[in-house]
C-alpha cells in the first residue's frame, strides 16, 4: 500500500481511505455493538412488557379460577409474530392455561417458584424465555411464561449486511472524497514532478512554478525553484561544454532519432542542427559500409554497454568521406532506464592522413637507410679492400724492401767471408757499416710489418713454455756489444728466478730487446742500464723491468710514448736513430699477450719500463713446439769449400738474388743452376733433375706457387725437395707454400747460413 513505487497521489488516497476506514469501522462497530445490545434489550423489554400485560389479563381468570378466559387471553398471542408459547401457571405451579404454536418445544428454563415481584428472562439460542409472576395488589396469583423466537441472529445478520454495505458505500464515498481532496496536496507535487520531468527531458524555458501557500509544499517548491535554477545553470554549462567541445558529439534516442548535435558535429559533417535534430539522419551521415558496425555499437549501448574507439566513416554533406573514432555510451534517465545513446567522436581523418604520410615517410626513410646501408656496405667493402690493399701494400713493400736488402746483406756476408780475396781494414770497416745499416733497415721493416699485423689483428700469439733466465740472458746478449761500446754498465737482477711460464717466446724476446735497446740508446756513455724480473704470484704475472739512467721522458709526453711513428723530440731523431716504432710495438706485443707496459720517468734522470706478462696456460698450447732459438753468433759448422756434387736449382726473377744465393751456395760446394721465371724453372727442373730447388714465390707471369705445383705434377719431380723463398711474410703464406708442394718455407731476407742448414737438413732427410 505504501510501497516506495506508488505515487504520492495514491499514497494520499490510501492514507485518507485508511483513516476513514479505521474511523468508519471503529464507529460502526461501536454503533453495531450498541445497536445489537439495544435491539436485544428492546426485544427483552417489549417481551417483558407484553408478558406483564398478558399476565395482568390473567389476574382475574386466575383469581376467579377461570382458565377459559386465561386461555382466551393467551389465544391472542397468535397475533404476536414469532411467539412460540405462552403458559400461565397457577400459584401451585400447575399449568392454568397454555398456548403454543404447533410442534413447539416448550421446555421451561426459568424457575417459577421465585416469588419475588418481577420478571426473569434468559436467551437460549434465539429464543427468549420470559417469566413474570402475576401479582395484583401485592398478591401473587400465578405466573406467566412466554417463549419467543426473537430471530435476533437473523436480525443481527441482516443488520450486519446492511452495515457492511453502508461501510462499503462510506469507503467509496471516502475514496471519492479522498480522490478529490488529495489534489490539494498531490496536484502541486505532480506539477513539480511534471516540471522536473520537463526539465529532465531537456525542455528549454523558464520552468518555475508558484505555489503561494506557506506550507511544506511551498517550501519544497522554493527549494525546487532553486534546484531548477541550479539545474538550468548546469544544463547551460553542460550544453556549453558539449557545444564548444572540440569533438563531434551527438545523442540519439531509442529509435535512432538524433536529439543533440553539437557545433563540432555541424562543422565536421556540414549538417546543421536543424537538418538533423529530430530525424534519423544517421542513415545519411554514416557511410553504408560502416552502418552495420554503427548499428552494432548502438545496440550494445542500448543494452547498457559503452564502447570506445570504434572507427566509423562519415559522409559529409559535401559527400566527403571522413574518418571518425567513436565513443558511445548509453543515455539514461533518472530512473536508470536507457533512453538512447550519446556518441562522441573524434575526427581522425587528418591523423589518419598524417599516419599514412608518416608511414610513407617511414618507408622512404627505410629506403634511404637501405640506400645508405648499401653505400656504407660498398664503402665498407671498399674500406676492407683498402685495408687489404694496405696489407698487400705493406707486404709488397716489405718484400720489395727486403729483396734488395737480402742482396745487400748477402753480398756483405759474402764479402766478409773474404772468399774472393783478402780485404783491407778500410774495406772491412765499410762492409761493417753496410751490414749494420742493412740490419737496422731490416729491423725497421720487420717492426713496421709487425705493427701492421697487430693493427690488422693478424698477429697470433703462440704460447710456449719460456724459461725466464734463458730469455733474459739472450735478450741481454743482444745489447751487450753496443752497451760495451758506450761503456754502459748492464746490470741484471733475476731474483733467482728459475721459472718457466707460458708466453709467446719470440714476442717476449722482441719486447725485452726493444726496451733494452732503447735503454742503451737513450743512455749517455758511462750510464747504467738494468733488467729486473719480479714474479707476482698473487696475480700470476711476471714483471720485467728495464731501467736506465738516460735522458728520461717528460710527464706530458708519456701518453704519446706508445703511439707509432712518434718520436718525442724531433731533435732526438737526429741524435738517436729510429723510426719511433719500438715502444709502440712493445706496448702492442704486451697487450696481445694479455699484459701491459708501465712507464716511470724523470726527465734527465732516467726511465723505468715495467712489462707485466701473465702466465698463460701451457696446456692450451701443448702442441706449440718451443721455438728454436737460433743463436746468430753461432758459427756454421757446415761451412766449407768442399765440392758436394749436389745440384741445386734456384728460381728467382731478381738477378741480384740469384747471384747472392749462387755465390754463397757455390762457395759451400753446391753445383748451382738458375732460372729467372717459373716457366724457366719448370723446364730446368725437367731437364736437369736437380737434387733441390729454391723457389722464389713472387714472380711475374707464373708465380712460385704455381711453378711448384706444376713441378709436382711430374712424377719424376715429385720427390725433389723444394724450399719456397718468399717475402710475403704474412700469416697463411707458409701454408700456401706447403699446400702447393714445397717442403719448407723461408722468408726473406734469407740468412744464408740458415739457408745452408735448411738445405743440408732437407738433403739429409731425403
Amino acid at each position, binding site marked *: 500500500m505504501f510501497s516506495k513505487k506508488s505515487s504520492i497521489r495514491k499514497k494520499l488516497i490510501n492514507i485518507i481511505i485508511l483513516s476513514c476506514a479505521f474511523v468508519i469501522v471503529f464507529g460502526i462497530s461501536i454503533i453495531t455493538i450498541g445497536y445489537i445490545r439495544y435491539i436485544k434489550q428492546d426485544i427483552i423489554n417489549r417481551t417483558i412488557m407484553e408478558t406483564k400485560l398478558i399476565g*395482568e*389479563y390473567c*389476574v*382475574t*381468570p386466575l*383469581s*376467579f*379460577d*377461570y382458565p377459559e*378466559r386465561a386461555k382466551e387471553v393467551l389465544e391472542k398471542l397468535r397475533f404476536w409474530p414469532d411467539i412460540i408459547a405462552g403458559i400461565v401457571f*397457577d*400459584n*401451585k405451579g400447575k399449568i392454568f392455561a397454555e398456548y403454543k404454536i404447533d410442534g413447539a418445544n416448550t421446555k421451561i428454563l426459568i424457575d417459577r417458584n421465585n416469588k419475588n415481584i418481577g420478571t426473569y428472562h434468559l436467551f437460549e439460542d434465539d429464543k427468549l424465555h420470559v417469566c413474570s409472576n402475576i401479582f*395484583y*395488589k401485592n*398478591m401473587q396469583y400465578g405466573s406467566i411464561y412466554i417463549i419467543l423466537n426473537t430471530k435476533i441472529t437473523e436480525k443481527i445478520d441482516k443488520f450486519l449486511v446492511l452495515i457492511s454495505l453502508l461501510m462499503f458505500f462510506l469507503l467509496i464515498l471516502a475514496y471519492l472524497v479522498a480522490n478529490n481532496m488529495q489534489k490539494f496536496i498531490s496536484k502541486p507535487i505532480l506539477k513539480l514532478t511534471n516540471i522536473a520531468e520537463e526539465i529532465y527531458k531537456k525542455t528549454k524555458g523558464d520552468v518555475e512554478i508558484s505555489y503561494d501557500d506557506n506550507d511544506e509544499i511551498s517550501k519544497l517548491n522554493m527549494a525546487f525553484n532553486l534546484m531548477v535554477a541550479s539545474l538550468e545553470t548546469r544544463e547551460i554549462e553542460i550544453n556549453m561544454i558539449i557545444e564548444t567541445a572540440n569533438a563531434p558529439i551527438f545523442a540519439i534516442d531509442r529509435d535512432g532519432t538524433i536529439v543533440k548535435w553539437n557545433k563540432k558535429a555541424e562543422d565536421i559533417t556540414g549538417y546543421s542542427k536543424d537538418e538533423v535534430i529530430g530525424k534519423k539522419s544517421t542513415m545519411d551521415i554514416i557511410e553504408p559500409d560502416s552502418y552495420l558496425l554503427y548499428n552494432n555499437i548502438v545496440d550494445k549501448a542500448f543494452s547498457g554497454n559503452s564502447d570506445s574507439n570504434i572507427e566509423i566513416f562519415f559522409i559529409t554533406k559535401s559527400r566527403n568521406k571522413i574518418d571518425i573514432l567513436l565513443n558511445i555510451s548509453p543515455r539514461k534517465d533518472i530512473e536508470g532506464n536507457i533512453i538512447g545513446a550519446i556518441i562522441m567522436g573524434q575526427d581522425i581523418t587528418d591523423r589518419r592522413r598524417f599516419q599514412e604520410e608518416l608511414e610513407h615517410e617511414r618507408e622512404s626513410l627505410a629506403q634511404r637507410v637501405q640506400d645508405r646501408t648499401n653505400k656504407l656496405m660498398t664503402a665498407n667493402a671498399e674500406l676492407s679492400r683498402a685495408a687489404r690493399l694496405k696489407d698487400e701494400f705493406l707486404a709488397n713493400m716489405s718484400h720489395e724492401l727486403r729483396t734488395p736488402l737480402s742482396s745487400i746483406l748477402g753480398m756483405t756476408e759474402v764479402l766478409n767471408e773474404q772468399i774472393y780475396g783478402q780485404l783491407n781494414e778500410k774495406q772491412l770497416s765499410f762492409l761493417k757499416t753496410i751490414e749494420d745499416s742493412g740490419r737496422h733497415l731490416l729491423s725497421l721493416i720487420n717492426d713496421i710489418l709487425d705493427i701492421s699485423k697487430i693493427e690488422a689483428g693478424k698477429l697470433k700469439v703462440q704460447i710456449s713454455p719460456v724459461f725466464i733466465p734463458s730469455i733474459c740472458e739472450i735478450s741481454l746478449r743482444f745489447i751487450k756489444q753496443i752497451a760495451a761500446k758506450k761503456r754502459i754498465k748492464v746490470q741484471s737482477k733475476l731474483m733467482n728466478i728459475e721459472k718457466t711460464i707460458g708466453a709467446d717466446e719470440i714476442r717476449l724476446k722482441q719486447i725485452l730487446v726493444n726496451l733494452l735497446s732503447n735503454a742503451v740508446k737513450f743512455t749517455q756513455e758511462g750510464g747504467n742500464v738494468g733488467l729486473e724480473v719480479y714474479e707476482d704470484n698473487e696475480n700470476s704475472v711476471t714483471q720485467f723491468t728495464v731501467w736506465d739512467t738516460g735522458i728520461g721522458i717528460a710527464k706530458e709526453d708519456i701518453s704519446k710514448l706508445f703511439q707509432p711513428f712518434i718520436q718525442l723530440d724531433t731533435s732526438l731523431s737526429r741524435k738517436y736513430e729510429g723510426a719511433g716504432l719500438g715502444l709502440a710495438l712493445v706496448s702492442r706485443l704486451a697487450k696481445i699477450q694479455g699484459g701491459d707496459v708501465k712507464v716511470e720517468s724523470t726527465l734527465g734522470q732516467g726511465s723505468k719500463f715495467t712489462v707485466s706478462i701473465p702466465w698463460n696456460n701451457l696446456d692450451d698450447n701443448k702442441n706449440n713446439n718451443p721455438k728454436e732459438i737460433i743463436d746468430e753468433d753461432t758459427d756454421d759448422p757446415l761451412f766449407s769449400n768442399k765440392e758436394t756434387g749436389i745440384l741445386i736449382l734456384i728460381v728467382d726473377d731478381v738477378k741480384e738474388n740469384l747471384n747472392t744465393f749462387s755465390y754463397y751456395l757455390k762457395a759451400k760446394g753446391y753445383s748451382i743452376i738458375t732460372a729467372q721465371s717459373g716457366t724457366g724453372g719448370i723446364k730446368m727442373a725437367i731437364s736437369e733433375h736437380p737434387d733441390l730447388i729454391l723457389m722464389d714465390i713472387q714472380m711475374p707471369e707464373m708465380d712460385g706457387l704455381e711453378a711448384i705445383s706444376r713441378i709436382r705434377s711430374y712424377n719424376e719431380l715429385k720427390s725433389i725437395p723444394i724450399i719456397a723463398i718468399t717475402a710475403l711474410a704474412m700469416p697463411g703464406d707458409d701454408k700456401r707454400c706447403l699446400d702447393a708442394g714445397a717442403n719448407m718455407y723461408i722468408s726473406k731476407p734469407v740468412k744464408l747460413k740458415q739457408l745452408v742448414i735448411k738445405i743440408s737438413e732437407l738433403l739429409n732427410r731425403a
Partner: protein
Amino acid sequence: MSNKSFFLYIILLFSTNSYAHLDDHLIKAGFLEKFALFTEWPPESKFKDCSKPFIISVLGQDPIINDLEKIYKHYRINNKDVKIRTISKINEIEDSDILYLTESIKDNIPEIIKYTENLPIITVCDTENCAEIGCHIGFYITDKGTVHFKINVSKMKQAGLKMNVLVLDIAKIIK
C-alpha cells in the same frame, strides 16, 4: 402473609373442586373477597379508613354465612378485619361494604336495590337475573356447571363504584 397463603389455599382448593355443588357457597364466599379486591370505592367512602372493619352484610338466610365466617375468621380484606353480619332489615345496610342478598329475600330485591342505589355498597345477589334488575353482581351457574357472575356496570357506576376492567373482562356485563 400466612393468612394470605391460607386464603389462596382455600381458593385454589375450591376452584379445583368447583364441580361440587355444595361447595358453590364457598366459591361464592371467596368471590366476595375478590370483588372487594377489584372494586374501587369512592374516595369519600370508609373503605380506606383502616380503623373501621370491612363489613359484609348478608340479608336473608343462606348457608353462605357459615362459609363466609369460616373464611374471614382469620382473613382480612384491604388489611382490615372482616366482619360478617346477618341483617334482616333494610336500614341495617349502612356501614356495609358488600351486601349479599340471599334467595330468601328474592321478592324484596327491587326495593333494596332502590334503597342502595346510590350507596357505595356492592350488592351481590345469588338470585337469577338479579343483575338485570339492578343488582351490582349476580351469580349464575354456567352450562358447565361452574359458578360465574354478571356485573351491572351502569348500576355500579351509579353507586360510585368502579369495577376493575379485568373483572369486567371475565364477567358477563349487564348494562
